[in-house]
Structure formats: structure tokens, C-alpha cells
């Protein structure tokens, strides 16, 4: 079976559960009107095809580029080159990230232009650039990931004491927004490329993961520092609620084409430029290999376009609609369960998740199977969505009531759990908050919030993304514990 057909089959299996759930809801408690249902089906088809093309493109285009870049940086063997390239790469990747652009515009809008979107773009990109460099250093000097993460989250915690609640939510959302659909495969391949040159195979394996987690903490810290320097800003509730309404107003596929086309080109462009420059000065690949990477970029572009169109045109409305209808449903318990189920199945269709699980399988030679990671991830995200629904229903619960204990637990776990899984888990946190979650689930949560009088639409939406980023960290570390126990040899004393 060629990789394209393999991927189509995989994605068919990933998307069909969501379709089935929506169908069941349609025939039982929330009948959906025909027009919307039709869009939903077209959207699902586009997502299946788009995901398949995108993932093939990542396989033969983006991942090889990242891996080659990583190796050539590491081979230079000079500290300043490594640091400088980390800065340049980090800045380059994040400044063109569409998710970050949206976020920056949102903040610009919310703060009535006091913090301009350009400012935010630059500050967050600089934060990520610095953190990518730090991540490179960690790989090279073999610093344990959990120590660095504890340090970083300690900084975040101290900063969070001085940030306003609105900025706290925005900061955590920024970390999800920057590790987008293209940055994830590229950063993953980059760290694999650097660490695979290491002689010590165990260290190389566990160093392959974690760079995404470090990079996204850079975004959080950058936004929080930005807040420190602009203390005087007052948020107007009115504007906050306005801004969320124009997110989900577009509904026809054709209206979406120009903006999505622009978004797809914008996200691929920096990588393409990087490829061309490095090909001329460093890689010097033969025509055959180079042609294959270019084809990979073409597939990524086609796939990204189809996928984004499908999600925005078909899934978002259904998500909002389901949320609104369910919020007026009497039985709260059923709504929470539906949230859980939607979370479980949506995450499977998240493109970056596929890339991460695939990468894990490659690096561990199939020891950590895709399905095992997916199962743990799904359960985690399911709980995250369910908890978000509960938070909307019970106004007393604040976001930090979840986040603080969650991060404390996950950091304590990181000291004890197998180090390979620490990297995987913290990376998965950034990976889980991709376009699928940010549209379908976010729309669903917003729908519930808008049907509930005492809930604030925007704040609750932000909280959901922060929770989805947190849950996999815990669930995957639990998986790590299970793996550790289960792979011990029976009847033989382990002499390690």
C-alpha cells in the first residue's frame, strides 16, 4: 500500500467517529438542519482528503527539511552557530504562524490598539526564538528536560502573580497558538535531527522530544512580560464579548477560499524560503531528493488548504450549534458526557497529533505504538473538555483552580516518570491544541457558554484551550508509568 492510501485509510478511521457521533446527536437530542448537515458532510470529506495530503507532504517534505536542518546545525559544532540558528529559526517559524496572527489581532482589538498586533507578534516570536535556542542548548549539553521545565514553569508561576486574569488566559492560549500545524512537525524533526547525531542512544531518544514544550513556554513568558510593561490597560467587557462573535460568522466554503488560501501560503512560505536558502548553501541535495521535498511542500499546501476549508466551513457551525442546543438541555450530566466523547474523538483527527505519534513510533522503532499514545491522549483531552463544560455550568470555578494543581501534578510526575515520556507528554500538550480543537471544540464550548447566562464567552473559550494543553501532559505520563511497569522482564532481575 502506498503511503497516500495508507494515510487516507487512517484518516477515514479518524474522522468517521466524529461523523457518527454528530449523526447520533442529530437523530436523538439535537436535530440539525439540512443545509448545515450537508456542509458538515462535505467538510468531513475535505478533512479526510486534506489530512491525507497534508500528512504525506509532512512525511516527504517538512520532516526531511527539519531533520536535515537539525543535523547540519549540529554538525557545525560551534556554539554560536547553534545559538544563532536557533534564534533565527524560532523567530522565522513563529512570526508567520497564522494562529499567532489571529491571536495578535484579537489582543490588539481587545486592548483597543494600545498593544498593537505587530508588537505582540514580535514579542512572542522573540520569546519563542530565545526558547528554541535554549532548547538546542539543552539537547547539546544533555540537561534533563524536567529540570528545565520546572525552572520555566516556576518563572511562569511567579510572573502569573503579577498578570491580570485576562492576560493569564491569553498567555496560555498563545502557547497553543504558536505551536501550530506546521511548526510542530518542523520543530519535532529539528530536535530529532540534532539529537540523533549523539552517540549515546538513550539520551538521543529522550532528547528528541521536548523542544515544542520549551518553545511554547517562551510564548507564555513573553506575553506575561508584555503585560508587566503595560499594566494600565483596562479590558472592556463589551469589546471582549463582541470579538468572539465575528469568529464564527462565516459559513460558506466559497467565502472562505481567499482567507484560507492566504493562510496556507503564509504558513508554508517561511519554510520554503528556508529550504531554498539551505539547499543552495548547505544541503546541496541531488535533484531527485530535492524534487521529492518540493513535491512534499506541494502536498502540504494542498492538504492544508482542504483541511482548513473543511474545518472552518463544515465543522465550526455544527460545533456552535450543538453547544447552543445542548446548553438548554436539562440533564447536565448528559452534556458533560457528550463533551467528553467529542473531546476523545476530535483529537484523533488533529493533524499535528498524527505527526507526533508517527514520529514517536519512528524514534522508538515501534516500541511506543501510535495507538497507545492516541488512547492516552484521547482520554486526557476528553476529560479536559468535560471539565471545561463543568466550569461553564458552575460559575464558582476559576481557570486557575484547574491549571495550578494540574501543572503542579504534572511537574511532580515529570521527576519520576520515564524521561522519554516526559518529553512526549509535554510536547503533546502543545500539539493537542491544533486547528481541530481550536475550531470544532472551541465552537462547541462557546456555544454552551453563549446559551448560559452567567458564563463569559471569550474567557471560557480560552480556558478550554489551556486545559486541552494541560490534560495530555498528565495522561501521557501515566502511560509512561504503565509502560515502565509492563516492559520489565519477568522472572529476570533487572540489573539497571
Amino acid at each position: 500500500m502506498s503511503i497516500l492510501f495508507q494515510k487516507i485509510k487512517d484518516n477515514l478511521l479518524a474522522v468517521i467517529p466524529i461523523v457518527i457521533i454528530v449523526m447520533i446527536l442529530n437523530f436523538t437530542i439535537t436535530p440539525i438542519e439540512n443545509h448545515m448537515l450537508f456542509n458538515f458532510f462535505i467538510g468531513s470529506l475535505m478533512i479526510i482528503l486534506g489530512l491525507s495530503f497534508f500528512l504525506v507532504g509532512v512525511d516527504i517534505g517538512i520532516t526531511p527539511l527539519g531533520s536535515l536542518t537539525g543535523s547540519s546545525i549540529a554538525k557545525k559544532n560551534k556554539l554560536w552557530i547553534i545559538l544563532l540558528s536557533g534564534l533565527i529559526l524560532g523567530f522565522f517559524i513563529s512570526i508567520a504562524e497564522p494562529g499567532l496572527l489571529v491571536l495578535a489581532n484579537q489582543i490588539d482589538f481587545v486592548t483597543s490598539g494600545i498593544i498593537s498586533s505587530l508588537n505582540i507578534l514580535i514579542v512572542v516570536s522573540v520569546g519563542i526564538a530565545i526558547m528554541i535556542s535554549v532548547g538546542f542548548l539543552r539537547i547539546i549539553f544533555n540537561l534533563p528536560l524536567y529540570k528545565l521545565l520546572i525552572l520555566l514553569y516556576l518563572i511562569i508561576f511567579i510572573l502569573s502573580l503579577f498578570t491580570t486574569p485576562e492576560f493569564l488566559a491569553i498567555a496560555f492560549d498563545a502557547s497553543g497558538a504558536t505551536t501550530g500545524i506546521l511548526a510542530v512537525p518542523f520543530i519535532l524533526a529539528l530536535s530529532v535531527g540534532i539529537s540523533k547525531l549523539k552517540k549515546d542512544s538513550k539520551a538521543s531518544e529522550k532528547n528528541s522530544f521536548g523542544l515544542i514544550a520549551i518553545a511554547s513556554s517562551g510564548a507564555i513568558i513573553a506575553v506575561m512580560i508584555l503585560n508587566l510593561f503595560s499594566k494600565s490597560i483596562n479590558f472592556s467587557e463589551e469589546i471582549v464579548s463582541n470579538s468572539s462573535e465575528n469568529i464564527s460568522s462565516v459559513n460558506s466554503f466559497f467565502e472562505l477560499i481567499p482567507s484560507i488560501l492566504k493562510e496556507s501560503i503564509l504558513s508554508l512560505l517561511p519554510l520554503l524560503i528556508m529550504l531554498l536558502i539551505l539547499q543552495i548553501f548547505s544541503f546541496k541535495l541531488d535533484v531527485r531528493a530535492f524534487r521529492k521535498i518540493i513535491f512534499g511542500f506541494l502536498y502540504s499546501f494542498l492538504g492544508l488548504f482542504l483541511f482548513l476549508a473543511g474545518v472552518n466551513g463544515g465543522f465550526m457551525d455544527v460545533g456552535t450549534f450543538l453547544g447552543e442546543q445542548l446548553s438548554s438541555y436539562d440533564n447536565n450530566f448528559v452534556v458533560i458526557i457528550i463533551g467528553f466523547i467529542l473531546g476523545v474523538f476530535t483529537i484523533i483527527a488533529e493533524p499535528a497529533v498524527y505527526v507526533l505519534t508517527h514520529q514517536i513510533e519512528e524514534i522508538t522503532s515501534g516500541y511506543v505504538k501510535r495507538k497507545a499514545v492516541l488512547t492516552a491522549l484521547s482520554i486526557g483531552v476528553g476529560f479536559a473538555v468535560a471539565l471545561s463544560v463543568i466550569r461553564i455550568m458552575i460559575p464558582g470555578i476559576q481557570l486557575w483552580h484547574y491549571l495550578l494543581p494540574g501543572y503542579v501534578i504534572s511537574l511532580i510526575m515529570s521527576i519520576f516518570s520515564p524521561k522519554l515520556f516526559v518529553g512526549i507528554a509535554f510536547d503533546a500538550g502543545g500539539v493537542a491544541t491544533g486547528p481541530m480543537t481550536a475550531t470544532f471544540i472551541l465552537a462547541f464550548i462557546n456555544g454552551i457558554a453563549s446559551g448560559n447566562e452567567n458564563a463569559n464567552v471569550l474567557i471560557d473559550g480560552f480556558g478550554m484551550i489551556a486545559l486541552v494543553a494541560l490534560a495530555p501532559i498528565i495522561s501521557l505520563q501515566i502511560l509512561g508509568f504503565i509502560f515502565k511497569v509492563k516492559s520489565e522482564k519477568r522472572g529476570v532481575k533487572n540489573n539497571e
Partner: protein
Amino acid sequence: MNNNMIFEYELVCLIINFGQASKSLKIAKNNGINGGTILLARGTAKNTLLEFLGLNDIRREVVLMIANKDNTDKALKEIEKALNLKKPNHGIAFTIPVSNFLGCGDYDFSLKSEKRSENKNMFNSVFTIVDKGKGELVMEVATQAGATGGTIINARGSGIHETSKIFNMEIEPEKEIVLILSKISETEKIVTEIREKMEIDKPGNGIIFVQDVNKTYGLRDK
């Protein structure tokens, strides 16, 4: 110890589509084979259009298993049936004779390899399969014993000591295969050294097997 017994052992090599290795290994274990090692690999489909589009990659898995001939015959028949190997594009299987095999607990063979010809260019390939992270130690020991080089291959696999499941999936811990080509005259020294330092004879510490190699290119004397 007689040499006939040694030659009853053979290496089974399966090259199959991705995702079927764990299944094959399970079948093999049910048919008397003690364990196996799995490597990830890539193949290409023969299709001009797909080749033009850059889509001709296929993910494959390679399974290596060692057992005596009776068991491999039985296991291979079962695997052939289960994976439909008779149909095209479903994978291939072949066996290679093994001249020495160590580390399988129950058996202990003398290291006297059969000197069947006085061919000057006779080399052995020594495969050592150990837990992940120990490959480098094997290399170090082998180099001290006279090996001129070696290759570490990442793999996963399981022996009789390692069988467990997560969410109904087989778990196969990570391994490393160290492939060393050595002159027949030096093989014994290298193998003995690895065997002692890695405590291969204790169960669960890995296996070593040795094969005859007919021709080598690019190998240099020290």
C-alpha cells in the same frame, strides 16, 4: 557438543507491511520460537505514476527470529497463512543458516565454528541483540577484542521474558542490534568477550548469533 546440532538453527527473516510485525511475532511465539526483534524499514512500490509524484514509499517492518529448524518451519507456515504471504505485495520471508547461537538460556553451544574450507576471505557476521542503550558497550567490548568496526541498528523486540499488553496491544521493548563483521580467526575472541562482559548467558541479557559471510568488500586489515 556436536556441530550438527548447531546447524539445526536458522535465522528467519520476514519483510512485511507496517503494523504486522507484532502479530507475526505473536504467532511465532505460539509456535515455539522464543523471541524476535523488529526493525522499521522503508520500501518502494513499483509504480511509475506514484514514483513521479513522490508517493512510492511504503512503510515496512523487518522481523528477525532465531529458532531450530522444526519450529521455524511450523511457525513460518502459520505466518504465511495468517499474513497471506502467497499473494503479491503481502511481504516475503526467508531463512538463513546460523553457525552459532548464544544467549537463549536453555542451550549452550561450544564456540568452535565449523572450519569447512580454507578460504582466505572467510568472514563471520556477528549479530548481538541487546537492550536499548547497551549497544555502545557491546561495540566497545568488541573493539577491544579486535573488531575493527560495527553498526548499531535500532530495533524493538521481545523474548520470552517480556510479554505484556497495554490497551490490548503487545509491547515490545526497544533493542539495539550490533552488527560486526570479523575474520573467522577473530570471531571466537570477540564473541567470548561480548558474552562475558554482557553476561549473555544469563537469561534476559540478550542474544548473539554468528553467520558465515562469503564475500566482503570495503573491509580493511588493521
